[in-house]
């Protein structure tokens, strides 16, 4: 799954995201754009516990009643854990690995046995199982993205930071034998977000803002998704 040598000795990258909770209005454009990019069908038989939503926006609140009630939206996706990555450790056939060049935790659906051990290991609920075979409304298969292979039932999938787009960017850059242009590699969710809440970047080139926090930091998984908010109750929730 990796184009070797395409980056010609470029500096190691650490791709991550900064998500501004104060800007997320819970519209769900990211969720739909992700499904479009990754050829995820509408699971018409699924409910909210069996559907496939590699990025999923949750609504959180401060637990109070009106009028002290406050609410916010928090997009959740694979946190691309950098240290002691739980899913990488537990997969019995190495169907998930962490790319040292980019820091992206990549799931290989062709290798996955469907044992779901990684789903038990992930504390962020970022992994989804294909409980059904993919089925689109008649004719809609024509609109599938050729850069991503549809998965069949019985395998686990998750956010791969739109690896299809990264490959397209690398192919474009390889023609000029240089580093990929950041503008060429933007995951679908970050591209679709109308409020600019989701920002994707190489954390080595541009570190996350100092006032950002990560979820479940005490577990020591070193996630690469940073969240920001000016609201105290949100920060306490994290």
């Amino acid at each position, binding site marked *: 799954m990796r184009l070797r040598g395409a980056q010609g000795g470029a500096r190691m990258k650490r791709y991550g995201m900064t998500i501004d909770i104060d800007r997320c209005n819970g519209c769900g454009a990211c969720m739909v754009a992700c499904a479009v990019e990754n050829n995820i069908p509408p699971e018409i038989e699924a409910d909210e516990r069996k559907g496939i939503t590699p990025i999923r926006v949750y609504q959180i609140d401060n637990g109070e009643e009106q009028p002290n009630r406050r609410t916010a939206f928090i997009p959740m996706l694979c946190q691309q854990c950098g240290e002691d990555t739980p899913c990488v450790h*537990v*997969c019995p056939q190495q169907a998930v690995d962490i790319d040292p060049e980019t820091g992206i935790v990549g799931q290989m659906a062709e*290798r996955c046995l469907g044992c*779901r051990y990684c789903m*038990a290991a992930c504390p*962020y609920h970022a992994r989804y*199982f294909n409980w059904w075979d993919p089925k689109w409304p008649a004719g809609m298969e024509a609109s599938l993205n050729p850069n991503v292979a549809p998965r069949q039932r019985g395998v686990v999938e998750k956010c791969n930071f739109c690896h299809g787009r990264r490959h397209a960017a690398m192919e474009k850059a390889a023609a000029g034998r240089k580093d990929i242009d950041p503008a060429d590699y933007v995951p679908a969710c970050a591209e679709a977000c109308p409020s600019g809440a989701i920002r994707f970047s190489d954390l080595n080139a541009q570190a996350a803002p100092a006032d950002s926090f990560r979820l479940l*930091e*005490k577990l020591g998984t070193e996630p690469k998704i940073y969240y920001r908010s000016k609201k105290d109750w949100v920060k306490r929730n994290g």
Partner: protein
Amino acid sequence: MDKFLIARGLKRCSTARFAAWILPWIALLGFGLVAAGLCLIKGLNQTNMDNRFAFGLWIFLDLTVIALGAGAFFTGFLLYILKLHELRAVINSAVIIGFTAYSGAVAVLAIDVGQPLRAWFTFWYPNVHSMLTEVTFCITCYLTVLAIEYVPIVLKNRKLKEVPSLLVFEFQLHKVMYVLAGVGTFLSFFHQGSLGGLYGVLRGRPFAFREGLFIWPSTFFLFILSAAAVGPSFVLLTTWLVEKISKKRLVRTEVLQLLGRISGLLLAVYVLAKTLDTLIWINRTSPSAGFPAAQFYGWKPFGVWILFAEIVLFGLLPAIALLTPKLRARRGLLVAAAALACCGVTLNRFVQTVQTLALPTLPFDKFLSYTPSWQEVGTFLAVVAYGVLVYSFSFRYLNLFPEERELKLEPAAPQEEEEMAYAGR
């Protein structure tokens, strides 16, 4: 009708009655196979597992059944390595229980994974860091060992013994039994442990995560101990059950008493280890991950009573009963204590699988519940039916209990008297 297949000197019920016994189990097996077939053909959406409950009834029952089937390796270890010869009376039965338990569990696992055709990937691309790789390798090897251990029992069948080459083969096999027992113990040690390690290494689930020795979390050792403790209990339980159903005496009292004593001893050690481990988890491991342990027990219906039930009700109490000769002497208490010990292990496996997944991990998570679908229950009932059928046929046509013949010839002493006499030793 099938008298020629039944071992000489043993009495078995008529063919018609046997048919009446196995018919409902065959029906249950058929129903279960339909349920399993649905899961294979239509996919795992037939179950009630979902993205939060990635493991459900099957994994929980697999772990339980493998722990209960540990009687196979442990009895073999005690008999062939530690030379406790009384256990020769139950080793065959234990091996068959182990064989059906493991083969049933492997069959359910083949349905539980999303892509059974890719099962060989674990062998070809193993991940040395993963406990599940270890489990896969060891269980596969151990199933082979159990199959090889089952063969001589089958070959001792009355009709098959008449074939000279098979007789010779069986004799040769018997010479390597010690090796097999040793290998089986070694493999079982590791896979019983790794099954515990599956949950102990989950850094993302502070409820299950434990620190331990070197690369092994404490649950590795706790699972081995609990499996070794409950193995003899389950052998005891099944032997008693078979005696009750077949209305025959199959083993001498000393054997059951020995099994009870061993089980009680290991259970006591396990209770001690588990208490220590729980205290360390409450005071150090869980808080350092940012989760006060009490938080996990605030979600109904999983309150602190579960911990109490597991350690005291199903752990300490049966251990005391099994270790006290006077209590152990009463058949009823012995069997009840063995049953409680088995319940304890079942509860422990439930806590490790289902409760771990039910508990929220993110601050904005909800506590969710899960009820298995009929297809899941059906598939598991197929395993139970399969076990009963294999055991029933083995009991009828093979000489499972070597002491049965002697006990038939002995004058039947009232059971109570005999046990009190034994207790008074």
